């Protein structure tokens, strides 16, 4: 399932030629629309790596969970720390689970 | 020239707040064609309103002379709609009777 961009939050990375999500997307799927907001141009090609969701500086991108993992309403939200990612997993019943993982960016 | 944005069909009562920006500079009186023909001048009418004396403002002899030429509204440096206030005062006067 493709990432969904909240246009009211997205500032197109200040409408530069290449927004952050476009740079990090491994499939080169994200791009800037004519309104200066980012969107996914081939939703069927997205394999839910969530790179764009993690990098978005204004938190405008949300990844919908594919049905194999959780039905509509389930959410997986990353929050990037300096060298950790905090994951919040919400299933369709509203049950919340949280994980903290170290990243080795340093 | 500034365009008048005030509606001419407005007949709401005059609010004292509208006259708050008035600094009593006298532009309206000077540019008024009829200001000195009566005992009061448009500036004075605004002053009555500022002093919270709407009755005296509404019964001012000046109101009968006002031709609604809008010059006062256009010259007012503070942007007070003087002519509009005069018009609504006249209306309120006749609503009494």
């Amino acid at each position, binding site marked *: 399932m493709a990432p969904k961009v909240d246009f009211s939050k997205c500032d197109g990375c200040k409408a530069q030629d290449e927004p952050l999500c476009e740079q990090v997307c491994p499939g080169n799927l994200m791009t800037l629309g004519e309104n200066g907001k980012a969107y996914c141009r081939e939703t069927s090609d997205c394999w839910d790596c969530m790179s764009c969701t993690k990098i978005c500086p204004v938190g405008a991108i949300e990844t919908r969970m594919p049905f194999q993992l959780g039905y509509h309403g389930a959410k997986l939200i990353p929050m990037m720390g300096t060298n950790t990612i905090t994951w919040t997993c919400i299933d369709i019943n509203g049950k919340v689970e949280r994980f903290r993982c170290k990243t080795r960016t340093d | 020239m500034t365009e008048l944005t005030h509606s001419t069909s407005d007949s709401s009562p005059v609010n004292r707040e509208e006259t708050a*920006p008035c600094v009593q500079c006298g532009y309206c009186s000077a540019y008024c064609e009829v200001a*000195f023909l009566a005992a*009061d001048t448009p500036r004075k009418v605004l002053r009555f309103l500022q002093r919270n004396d709407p009755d005296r403002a509404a019964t001012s002899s000046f109101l009968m002379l006002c031709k609604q030429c809008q010059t006062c509204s*256009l010259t007012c440096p503070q942007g007070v709609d003087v002519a509009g206030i005069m018009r609504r005062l006249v209306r309120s006067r006749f609503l009494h009777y």
Partner: protein
Amino acid sequence: MEKKIPKIGLYLCDAGGKIGAAIDLPGLIEKCGKTKGVEYCELVTDPWSEDFLSRVRARIKTGEIDRLVWGGRFTARQQDMLKKKLAEADLNSHLHAWCDLELHGIGQSTEESGVQQKKALSLIKMAAAHARFLQPLEPLAIPATDAAVVVGAGIAGLHVAASFLERGKPVHLIEQQSGVGGKVALLSRFYPLHCDPHCGLEYVLKSLRGSDKLTLHTLSKPTAVEGAAGNFSVTVQTEPRYVDENRCNGCGQCAEVCPVDIPIFGDSVQDEPPYQQEKGIGSLVIDTRKAIHPSLPYGFPESYVVERHACPEGCAKCEGVCPTNAIELNQVSREQNLKAGAVVATTGWDPYPLSKVNTNFGYGVYQNVIGNLEMEQLLSRMSRGLDNLAAPPLAKLKTVGFVQCVGSRNNLHLSYCSSVCCSATIKQIQQLKSLQPDVTCVVYYQDMRCNGFEEDMYQAAMASEDILFVRGFPKITSSEPDSSQVTAIAEDTFSGKPIKKDLDLLVLAGGMQLSQAGSEFAEISGLPLNDSNFLTGHYQCYPEESQRTGILSGGCARGPMNVSQSIDSANRAALKALNFLDGSISINPTFPIVDKTKCDECKRCVEECPFACYHYDEKGFPEPDLGKCRQCGNCMGTCPVAAISLNNFTIKQLAAQIGVLENSFLDYEDPVILAFLCENDAYLAARAAVDSGLLLPLNVIYVKVPCAGAVNNAVVADALALGIDGILIAGCSDGQCHYVNGNRLVQKRSGDLREKLTTMMIEPERVRSESVEIQDSARLVRILEAYIEDLKELGPNPFKV
């Protein structure tokens, strides 16, 4: 490079014995000894004794310790002293970390000592974590140009140039007219002393004449300002003079043969008529000049200039008679590049176009309605015994009217007060009365604003019987357009009675606005104008500075000023500019560094830097221009990948500091708050709270940041993920941020984070941003206490263990 393991020397200073009374210090020392990186720790009672300092120095020299953490309270002066004393042992002054235990309530709070003990340990650990990543730093010295560029050679610009020349600095003085003097050269008299402005100009020109360090670029204007403080590159476009300045001896033979007469308008002697037409003023012709004439408005440089557009085709009479062959009618305009350490904009003012004013009192319709600059010219001619060329005949003046605030203090035009016109009008009346004692003057005014010493002039004018002050504005009528008199009817707003006067001359006191050249300069140098469209820095704290370090503004480019205020302002600007003209610029080494292995080239830092100091290196990575950078850290806060860090205040250090907070010093239910305080306002407010005996809650840990905008969301996320219950980011009030808008940027970012927290099913109240002013100590305590209560209601952070 070989990686060195940091060796921290930890010194706990308990000067008053307060901390020792509240907690078990020997126990704390023992535990601190086990902290990562700490090699040695000691309890100190007198850190100023030479005995103690020599022991520390010995330890540093033997290599036992290579950086220091100081626990306890140290004022900025004491910190500086310790840094200096230990620099004798070759300890870099950036290798100190300070842990203000007193600020955090240790030894102040009445709470049980167990909590204080644990908190003190956490704080020491945080300081040690900070110290582990400290780097020895030395100030950077950037070679700089010692020349200055001054834009505008009015009275302010001349004073700036004179100040630089006195200090021996080379000056490029750029003037768009053919001569210096600006508006002051058009005036008839200064007030309140009634001296001739030409005398004042001569006074300042004395130090300019013959100086080999001064380069005067007349008929020039800057077209680009590149670079940063110390190394500006200013592109200047110079129009041809058609006369060689060096060879012209000013004999004037050329003007005698010149066949052209150009009218001189009363309010302006601009060389370029299109410019004048654009302004729409200058109706009064007071004199004529030849197409070749001395420099205007004031005869310096002492060379003639040709107004080529007025020359008849093929005429070269002047060329023929010139005894020194100075006239070169084939000159062309040229562009040059000037190097400068600092740029001072003294671009001055323009009169507000009177024809634009809706109540223009017949200006441009009746020939005897003039502006006050034109009046200055008339007075100047009268005092020289000359009459006006056109009407009105000056000798027959009987009644003269003056209208104040024409265009100023008017919501439709200039909302501000032009501040000089009231006194200028009284000065003109006084001069007029001294020339023609039987003149009656009428002043139409709203309020007479004669500040300071000018009040005496006003009182003297009030006492005169021939000067009538009417509070109210007139309407001007006339029987026919070219009549010698106009009729003014005004309401005296004190009595409500109409006052009718027949006036021989009506003078309108027009407003002052930033000159055309000033707004052009602001545009080419990328400087914002303030609400009143003048150049500005911070109106109160650093008025002459601008958002670009090294570009300063003085005189009427900053706002309406009289001559003496303008000279004041110019000299202040010159004083500030001298800092950049030492031939080298020293830069504090705590500047931002971009980690190019992490940077994603998203350009957000470039966009959000308040001082526009980022440029791209050859590979497209952003790079700060250190001369422009003010080290506020907004780039560090804004970087989405946390790749930018200020030296010795890095993201890594902040993360390490927060990392040691993993085990809370409080009970599970008791909320812990991490407060990022702006060091300009909020931190000082917290410090003042302690000094004034206010009790700061023990739940809070304070981190000093250079600007609230330096707090990165990743750091906040780290803290939340570690179970910190609440994050408070305290910056300045809106519009008061020393770094333009750091507080607004951080509010926007924490708003984004709050929305993210909501989707994560975490209460958004856990991240809060507040505005705290320096006087707000009591309010800060209230904010914190209320926040603790709110957090208690919310319950512990879900990530808390």
